């Protein structure tokens, strides 16, 4: 639980900045996938889901089209399952569209080691063979452990190993902000 | 060789009231019992201050597995275990292999005990039927000549009532009594534990109390009809006690024993699925346990017997239904039953009666300290607190559900025929 015991040192994004950042990401995504058909916006549970919903809503408003969407739970695909960590709560995945041939944009709050998105890619692949997978993260805090880079980044920040980045969202946490703190 | 026991409380109910005094033992006999102090030149002196000094205890129901199953127990280790438990005499049950249904086996047992044993007396209870099969009578007369003090098919009740009648009658012509393991084997078939709420909870086939009672009723009725005595082994249920009370009131010569585990544990203990809680008759309900304590108190139960039933760890380390019944009891009986004295349920005199009644039931010498009598003496330290450790047993077997039990009261020294056969090292 990244929120527990986090000693907040600075706020790196407030509500207004978050909205602007998401708006910019929406435009980038539209620009990139615009010509493609069969686009689906998929949030990675837990905090990728509300961000994905916001992005989805804005894309549909701007483009006046219905875009497929879904959520993905990576608990069953984690590679740290046996590392003595508490086994995470499993939530349902929900991909109610034909994954075969879809252009999927995975949405998450923070990219860190890259392991989460690796698991999410595996999870999506179990539903079918998408035409492409892209990846958007609201915050990139560095320290990658896998050769994975996001296609869309809200904000990149330099962080230390002993630091943590926490994203607060209205839908879950009653406010929008991104903070850096010490673990 | 002289031995002087001083300062102990001599509890000798057959001779009268208890008192603090001394006992002098010379050449295997008690030569002097006195209130207060005695002196004797050159005697080994045992300071028994704070101890209870009693006639040597008798266990009228043990299984020594010799011949046939010597890896579980043999006569010598069995006698050692008896000594450690405070017993100076034991009555062995006939379910050896071959069964104690022939002169060869009975002589083997008595001679081995007499020649190689530690001095604790061994009295065989011989088979009632050949091979304990419940079909034809064993050579009871010859077995009596070989040393049998009673007859029984213990573990396997005689289902054929006609055979029961003939066995009781025939044995009586040789002055022997039938000792009954009371069980209706139709009702106990497949059973693993007492039939109760707990058998329902644990999902085990139950052994109903009525099965024991049916058999007790039959034996008592037969004894009444024939005018003969009968002894009922290991009574475990209230229903049986009620029947015994009825027949005793009718003047039937019925005596009864129960075992320490029926006074200490209930069927709830089986929930551990520890096969050491599997015993026949099974551990019964709390109501039965309370009734047994009351019967021990009132005299309805005449004697405590351990039903010492050694089994190798290998035999017990199996699925519950596969495991044989029985638990060792010689080395835990005194502390378990002494709890009733501490709990003010019974007096120390009653305690001694319960552990010496076997002599009277089978007409054996012992059970009382008398000048000129055999020096069979047990010293008990009533206040000593200790934890039962199965790995300290003299018995070859470790099958006890009481391992780790914290108890108060211990056998301090056992003297058989004037010889110290056991001393507890504190």
């Amino acid at each position, binding site marked *: 639980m990244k929120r527990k015991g986090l000693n907040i040192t600075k706020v790196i994004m407030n509500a207004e900045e978050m909205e602007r950042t998401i708006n910019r990401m929406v435009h980038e995504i539209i620009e990139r996938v615009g010509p493609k058909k069969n686009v689906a916006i998929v949030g990675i549970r837990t905090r990728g889901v509300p961000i994905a919903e916001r992005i989805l809503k804005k894309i549909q408003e701007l483009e006046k089209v219905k875009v497929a969407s879904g959520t993905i739970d990576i608990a*069953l695909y984690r590679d740290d399952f046996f590392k003595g960590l508490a086994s995470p709560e499993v939530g349902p995945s929900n991909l109610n569209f034909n994954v075969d041939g879809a252009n999927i944009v995975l949405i998450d709050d923070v990219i860190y080691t890259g392991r989460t998105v690796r698991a999410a890619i595996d999870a999506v692949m179990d539903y079918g063979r998408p035409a492409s997978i892209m990846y958007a993260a609201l915050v990139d805090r560095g320290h990658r452990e896998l050769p994975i880079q996001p296609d869309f980044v809200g904000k990149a920040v330099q962080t230390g190993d002993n630091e943590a980045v926490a994203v607060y969202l209205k839908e879950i946490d009653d406010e929008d902000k991104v903070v850096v703190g010490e673990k | 060789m002289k031995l002087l026991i001083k300062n102990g409380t001599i509890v000798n109910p057959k001779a009268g009231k208890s008192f603090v005094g001394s006992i002098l033992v010379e050449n295997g006999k008690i030569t002097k019992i006195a209130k207060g102090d005695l002196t004797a030149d050159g005697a080994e002196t045992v300071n028994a201050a704070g101890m209870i000094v009693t006639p040597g205890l008798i266990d009228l129901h043990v299984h020594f597995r010799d011949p046939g199953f010597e890896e579980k127990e043999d006569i010598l280790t069995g006698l050692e275990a008896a000594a450690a438990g405070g017993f100076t005499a034991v009555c062995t049950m006939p379910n050896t292999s071959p069964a104690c249904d022939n002169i060869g086996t009975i002589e083997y047992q008595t001679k081995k005990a007499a020649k190689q044993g530690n001095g604790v007396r061994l009295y065989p209870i011989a088979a009632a039927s050949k091979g304990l099969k419940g079909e034809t009578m064993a050579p009871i007369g010859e077995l009596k000549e070989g040393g049998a003090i009673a007859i029984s098919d213990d573990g396997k009740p005689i289902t054929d009532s006609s055979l029961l009648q003939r066995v009781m009658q025939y044995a009586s012509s040789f002055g022997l009594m039938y000792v009954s393991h009371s069980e209706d084997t139709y009702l106990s078939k497949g059973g693993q534990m007492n039939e109760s709420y707990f058998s329902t909870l644990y999902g085990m086939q139950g052994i109903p109390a009525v099965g024991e009672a049916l058999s007790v009723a039959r034996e008592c009725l037969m004894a009444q009809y024939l005018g003969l005595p009968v002894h009922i082994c290991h009574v475990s249920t209230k229903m049986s006690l009620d029947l015994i009370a009825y027949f005793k009131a009718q003047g039937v010569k019925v005596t009864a024993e129960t075992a320490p585990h029926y006074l200490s544990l209930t069927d709830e203990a089986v929930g551990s699925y520890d096969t050491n809680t599997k015993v026949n008759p099974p551990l019964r309900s709390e109501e039965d346990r309370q009734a047994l304590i009351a019967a021990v108190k009132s005299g309805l139960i005449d004697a405590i017997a351990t039903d010492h039933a050694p089994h190798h760890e290998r035999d017990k380390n199996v699925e519950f239904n596969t495991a044989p019944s029985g638990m060792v009891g010689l080395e835990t009986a005194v502390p378990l039953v002494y709890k009733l004295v501490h709990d003010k349920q019974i007096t120390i005199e009653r305690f001694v009666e319960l552990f010496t009644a076997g002599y009277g039931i089978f007409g054996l010498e012992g059970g009382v300290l008398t000048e000129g009598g055999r020096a069979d003496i047990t010293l008990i330290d009533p206040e000593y607190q200790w934890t039962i450790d199965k790995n300290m047993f003299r018995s070859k077997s470790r099958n006890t559900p009481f391992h780790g039990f914290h108890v108060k009261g211990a056998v301090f020294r056992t003297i058989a025929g004037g010889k110290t056969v056991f001393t507890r090292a504190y």
Partner: protein
Amino acid sequence: MKHLLGIENLNRDQIMHILETAVSFEEINQRQIKKVPTLKGLSVINFFAEPSTRTRMSFEVAEKRLSADSYNIAVSGSAITKGETLSDTALNLQAMAPDCLIIRHAVSGTPHMLAQIMDCSIINAGDGFHEHPTQALLDAYTIQKKKGRLDGLKVALMGDIAHSRVARSNIHLLTKTGSHVTVAGPATMIPKDIKKLGVEVTYDPKEAVKDADIVMMLRIQEERESGLMYPDRREYAKFFCLDEKLLSYAKPDATVMHPGPANRGVEIDDNIMDGDRSVILEQVANGVAVRMAVLYLLLGGSNS
């Protein structure tokens, strides 16, 4: 929680947590690729010392869908038939370092014995007539899906209660979650003092079924060591078979369940078994998801 030995020792929250977790696994069973890598590299031994089709298959499917490596031992192919003791067999299996052992055994308490000998997680897949926890969990999952709750339901549980592990586990579970259980059968099939488990007892099936939300039938057992508990199948069917007439006493939307294998025409009529109130096959389907959830929760890290 390391082992799942029975429902008796679970509390309501633990039961509900397993059932909630199962929801996510049910989704996997509906995908085209019905497999996730969660238990990749873990070894699970299915040790069935008693015949079983449904439960054994269900566990195996659950294990494989979680990418565990499954190994099956049937007693006829094991050292037990060569005279090895169960504890020795267990120690030998232990030496091969499995992560989980699923055990079905005819003797009550055997999983508990293995849990003391072995280091791995033990899941009781049915011991004697003691417990069958995953069956009760899948039954509860099925009821929850059908009725939307596990409390305040009237449940009729009928058949050989005395010799049924399914009955015991279901009684523990449903009384813990606040439902009302009535057991019914001829008196020979009702074990001593079962009322103390918090159930009502009747020998009249109509009374048990009356206004029931759930009618759960149990398999009539073959002859046991202690003898047959009923005169013959014909007589049993005449008085205790769940047919249209008996079921008409239940609520109109009553759900009919049976853990299988069923004796058609003896404890349950074909019409009912194949009818629209029967969820017998859904029970089987849900069994896979529930067992996946149990494996996930027991084998996943240091979950409490």
